[in-house]
C-alpha cells in the first residue's frame, strides 16, 4: 500500500513538473520559431518592420477577444480560437520588435463591464451568443489620442491581417497624411453623416448617396480632396485619382486642368470604362474615356468594345440554387496576367474586371510604357451592342459566349506610363468667359506648359466597376470583404507613386491558395473545346423555341381545324428536335465533368490501394518465406 502511494506520488510529481515545464516553455519560447512557408506567411514583412521602426510614440494594441463567450459558443467558434492565437502571436511579434514602444493588451470583454463599453466605443462589432457578447477586434490607440479600429477579425482575411494592423499603426502614428485628390463622374465620396441622420433623411424620402467602400478605405489612410468637375487648376495634392470622368460641365476645361496638373509633375491614376455597370450618372451611355489626353501620352482605350477572355471568365449564379454560367464580361485575372516585375501587381493573386475596355499602348518617344495587367493571348474584344442592353438589363452570359472568338494577342487592361509627357493641349485652351450674360461672352486662349517639367507617372485602368463595392467586395456573414485584390493593387499604386513603400511591402504578403492547377486546366481546356459546340447547340435550342412559339401563336380559332394536323406534326417534330438538342448539350456538359471525375476516381483508387497493397504484399512475402523456412526445418528435423 505504501509502495503504491509512493508510486502515485512519484507519477503525480513527474506530471506536475511536465505541466510546469510546458507552461514555462510556452511563455518563454514563443518568439523562437522558424517559418518554413514559401511566402513566409507567418513572419512579419520588411514593410511592417520599417513601420514598427518608424513608430516614435507609445502605441497600445488592444486585442479584444471574448474568450469566455467563445467557450460557451457553438463548435464553429473553434476556428476563431485558433485564429485568435495566431493574431495574438502576430501582435506579440509587433510588441517584440518595437523596443517597448508598442504594447499589447489582450482583453476578454465580459458583459456589463468597462472593457465591453470600451470595445463598443472603439467601434468593434458585437455578436450576441446567448447572454454573452462575442467580440474579436483590435483597437490601436496612441499616446496622442489617435484611435484606429479593426472592427472584426475573421480567419477569411488571414492573409490581410498583417497589412491591416500595420496600416492602422501607420495611419495613427503618421501625422502628415498624403493628400489624394479625387475627380469622379459618379459621387464616390458620398455624403458622410451619422447613421441616425441618414435614417432620418431616408424616412423623409431623401436618400443621400453612400460613399463607396473604396472612399472609406482611402479616408482612413489619406487626406481626401474632392476635385470639382469644373476645376480650372488642380494643385496642392500628392496624387490625383480620376474615376469615370463623365458628366463634366466642360470636358475640355477639366481635361486641360488634368493635363496641366500632369505637366507640373503631378501623378495620376485614371479609371476609364467602355461600359460602367454601376454608372449612376447616365444609364444609357455608361462609357467614359480620357483618350483626349491618354492618346498623346501613349495609351488609348478602344471605344464601344470590351475585353473578354475565356481563361479568366468567372462563373455567376443566374438564380439562387441554379448552377452558374460562364459570364465573359466578368474576368478574374490571375497571377499569369499580372506584371510580376512591378511591385504594384507582383503579388496580386486575382484582380476582377467587369466590362473592362482594352488599352492600345503606343508610347511616344521619351515615355516608358509598362503593362500591369493583361488578358491571355486568347483574349479578344466583344462589341458593346446596345440592343443587348435593352432597358438597362445585363444580358445572359450565353449571349456573349456565342459571339466570342478567341484572339491571338493579350489585351492590356492596366498600364503604367512613365516619362516627361507632352501636353495634349500644345496650343493651349480656348476659354469662353461669360461676362454677366451670353452676349458678352468673349474667347480667351489660356496657354499652359507644353511639356512636363519633370518625369512623372500615369497609371490607367480600363475599368471603373473594379473599384466599386459591387465587384471589389463580396458579402459574408460578417459583412463585406474584398473579393479579390482590386483595392489592394490600387492602394499599392497610390503608395508606389506617393512614396510610402513600407506599407506597400506590408500589404504584399503571400497568399494561402495553391489550387489544383491540373484539374483547373483540364476544365478550362474542355470548356474551350466544347464552347463552339455548346454555343451551336444553344443557338439551335433558341431557334426551335422561337419557331415553336411562332407556330403556336399562328393558330387562331378560324384556321385551327385546317392547320391542326399540320401544326401538331410540326410541333411534335420541333419538340423532338428540341429534346435532342438539349440531350446533346447535356452530353457535352457531362463529357466535361466525366473527364475530371475519371481523374479523381483514378487518384482516389491509387491512393486507397497502393500503400495497403504494398503492406499486403510484404506480409505475404514474409509469410511465404517463414512457411518455407518452417518446412525446411521440419524436413531437416525429420
Amino acid at each position, binding site marked *: 500500500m505504501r509502495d503504491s502511494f509512493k*508510486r502515485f506520488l512519484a507519477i503525480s510529481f513527474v506530471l506536475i513538473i*511536465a505541466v510546469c515545464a*510546458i507552461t514555462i516553455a510556452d511563455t518563454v519560447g514563443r518568439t523562437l520559431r522558424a*517559418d518554413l512557408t514559401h511566402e513566409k506567411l507567418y513572419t512579419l514583412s520588411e514593410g511592417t518592420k520599417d513601420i514598427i521602426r518608424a513608430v516614435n510614440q507609445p502605441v497600445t494594441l488592444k486585442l479584444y477577444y471574448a474568450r469566455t463567450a467563445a467557450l460557451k459558443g457553438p463548435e464553429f467558434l473553434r476556428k476563431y480560437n485558433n485564429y485568435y492565437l495566431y493574431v495574438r502571436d502576430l501582435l506579440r511579434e509587433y510588441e517584440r520588435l518595437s523596443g517597448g514602444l508598442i504594447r499589447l493588451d489582450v482583453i476578454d470583454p465580459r458583459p456589463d463591464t468597462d472593457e465591453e463599453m470600451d470595445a463598443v466605443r472603439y467601434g468593434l462589432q458585437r455578436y450576441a451568443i446567448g447572454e454573452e457578447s462575442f467580440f474579436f477586434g483590435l483597437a490601436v490607440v496612441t499616446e496622442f489620442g489617435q484611435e484606429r479600429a479593426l472592427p472584426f477579425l475573421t480567419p477569411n482575411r488571414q492573409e490581410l491581417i498583417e497589412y491591416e494592423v500595420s496600416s492602422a499603426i501607420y495611419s495613427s502614428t503618421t501625422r502628415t497624411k498624403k493628400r489624394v485628390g479625387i475627380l469622379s463622374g459618379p459621387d464616390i465620396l458620398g455624403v458622410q453623416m451619422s447613421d441616425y441622420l441618414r435614417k432620418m433623411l431616408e424616412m423623409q424620402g431623401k436618400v443621400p448617396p453612400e460613399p463607396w467602400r473604396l472612399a472609406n478605405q482611402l479616408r482612413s489612410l489619406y487626406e481626401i480632396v474632392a476635385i470639382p468637375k469644373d476645376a480650372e487648376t488642380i494643385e496642392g495634392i500628392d496624387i490625383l485619382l480620376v474615376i469615370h470622368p463623365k458628366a463634366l460641365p466642360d470636358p475640355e476645361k477639366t481635361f486641360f486642368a488634368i493635363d496641366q496638373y500632369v505637366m507640373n509633375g503631378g501623378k495620376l491614376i485614371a479609371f476609364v470604362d467602355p461600359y460602367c455597370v454601376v454608372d449612376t450618372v447616365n444609364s444609357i451611355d455608361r462609357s467614359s474615356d480620357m483618350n483626349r489626353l491618354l492618346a498623346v501620352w501613349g495609351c488609348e482605350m478602344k471605344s464601344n468594345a470590351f475585353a473578354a477572355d475565356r481563361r479568366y471568365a468567372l462563373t455567376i449564379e443566374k438564380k439562387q440554387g441554379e448552377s452558374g454560367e460562364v459570364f465573359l464580361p466578368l474576368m478574374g485575372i490571375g497571377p499569369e496576367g499580372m506584371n510580376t516585375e512591378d511591385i504594384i501587381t507582383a503579388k496580386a493573386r486575382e484582380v476582377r474586371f467587369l466590362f473592362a475596355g482594352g488599352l492600345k499602348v503606343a508610347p511616344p518617344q521619351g515615355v516608358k510604357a509598362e503593362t500591369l495587367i493583361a488578358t491571355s493571348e486568347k483574349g479578344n474584344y466583344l462589341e458593346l451592342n446596345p440592343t443587348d442592353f435593352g432597358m438597362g438589363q445585363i444580358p445572359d452570359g450565353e449571349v456573349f459566349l456565342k459571339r466570342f472568338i478567341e484572339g491571338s494577342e493579350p489585351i492590356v487592361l492596366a498600364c503604367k506610363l512613365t516619362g516627361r509627357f507632352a501636353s495634349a493641349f500644345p496650343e493651349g485652351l480656348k476659354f469662353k468667359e461669360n461676362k454677366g450674360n451670353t452676349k458678352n461672352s468673349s474667347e480667351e486662349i489660356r496657354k499652359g506648359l507644353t511639356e512636363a517639367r519633370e518625369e512623372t507617372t500615369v497609371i490607367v485602368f480600363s475599368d471603373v466597376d473594379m473599384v466599386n463595392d459591387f465587384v471589389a467586395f463580396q458579402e459574408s456573414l460578417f459583412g463585406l470583404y474584398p473579393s479579390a485584390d482590386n483595392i489592394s493593387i490600387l492602394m499599392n499604386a497610390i503608395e508606389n507613386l506617393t512614396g510610402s513603400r513600407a506599407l506597400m511591402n506590408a500589404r504584399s504578403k503571400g497568399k494561402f491558395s495553391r489550387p489544383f492547377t491540373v484539374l483547373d486546366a483540364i476544365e478550362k481546356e474542355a470548356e474551350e473545346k466544347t464552347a463552339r459546340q455548346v454555343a451551336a447547340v444553344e443557338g439551335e435550342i433558341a431557334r426551335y423555341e422561337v419557331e415553336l412559339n411562332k407556330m403556336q401563336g399562328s393558330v387562331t380559332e378560324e384556321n385551327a381545324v385546317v392547320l391542326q394536323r399540320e401544326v401538331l406534326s410540326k410541333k411534335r417534330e420541333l419538340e423532338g428536335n428540341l429534346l435532342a438538342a438539349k440531350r446533346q448539350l447535356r452530353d457535352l456538359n457531362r463529357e466535361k465533368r466525366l473527364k475530371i471525375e475519371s481523374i479523381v476516381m483514378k487518384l482516389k483508387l491509387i491512393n486507397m490501394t497502393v500503400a495497403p497493397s504494398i503492406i499486403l504484399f510484404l506480409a505475404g512475402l514474409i509469410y511465404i518465406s517463414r512457411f518455407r523456412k518452417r518446412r525446411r526445418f521440419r524436413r531437416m528435423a525429420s
Partner: protein
Amino acid sequence: MIGGFSAIAKRELKCYFSTPLAYVILFVFLVFASFLSFKGQFFEIRQADLRIFFDYLPILFIFLVPAIGMRLWAEERKTGTIELLFSLPVTVRGAVLGKFAAAWLFIGLALVFTFPLIVTVNYLGDPDNYVIAAGYAGAFLLAGCYLAVSIFASSLTRNQVIGFIVSVLLCSIFAFADYPSILNVLSTFLPLRAVEIVQNMSFIEHFESMRRGVIEFSDLAYDFILIAGWLAATTVVLDGRREA
C-alpha cells in the same frame, strides 16, 4: 548507451514485423487515412496541400497509437516475460525507451506509407513541400505524445484491452483539451488561467503550428517534455513492479 536500449528496440521492431497484428494495423490506418481525407472533400476543395489529411490524423491516432502501444507492457506482464526481461542486464529506463523508440519508428513507417497523398498533391498542383514536411514532422511528434501516454496506460495493467481503453480515453482528453465545449465545462469551476493551462495541454493545439509550416520552440518543447514526462511516469510504475 542506456542499458539495453538498442537491443530492446531492435527486438521490438523485429517483433512488429513477425506478427500479423502490425500489418493489420498498418493496413487499416492507411485505408482510413486516405478514406477520411477523401471524405473530407480533399478533391472538392482543390487545394494542393495536406490540410485535410492532417485534420483527421489526430483523430485517427487516438485509435491507431493505443492499438500499437497497448501490448508493449501489458503483454509482457500477462505472459510473465517481464520478470525474465528484468532479469537480463537491462535497466527499466532502457527497456521503456527501447520499446518506445521501436513503436515510434513503426508509426513513422505508417506515416511514410501515406506517400501517395504527397505524390497526388504534387501531381495536381504546386504545393509548398516545406509545409508538408513540417506537417509530417509535427505528425510524428504528435504520434510520439500519443504513444508515451499509451505506454504509460499499458504499464498499469496486464490486460491489453483495458490498456487500450485507458489510453484511448487519456489520448482523447489530451487531443480535445482545446475544444470549446470541454473548456466551457472546465470554466464553470476553474479559473480562466487554469482553463488556459488545460487548453495549452492540448495535443492538437501544439500540432496546429507545425501543420501550417511554422516550427515553434514552445511546440517542440511541449512534445518532448510531454513524452519525457509520461515515459518517466512509466519508468516509476515499472520500477515499483521490479522491486516488488
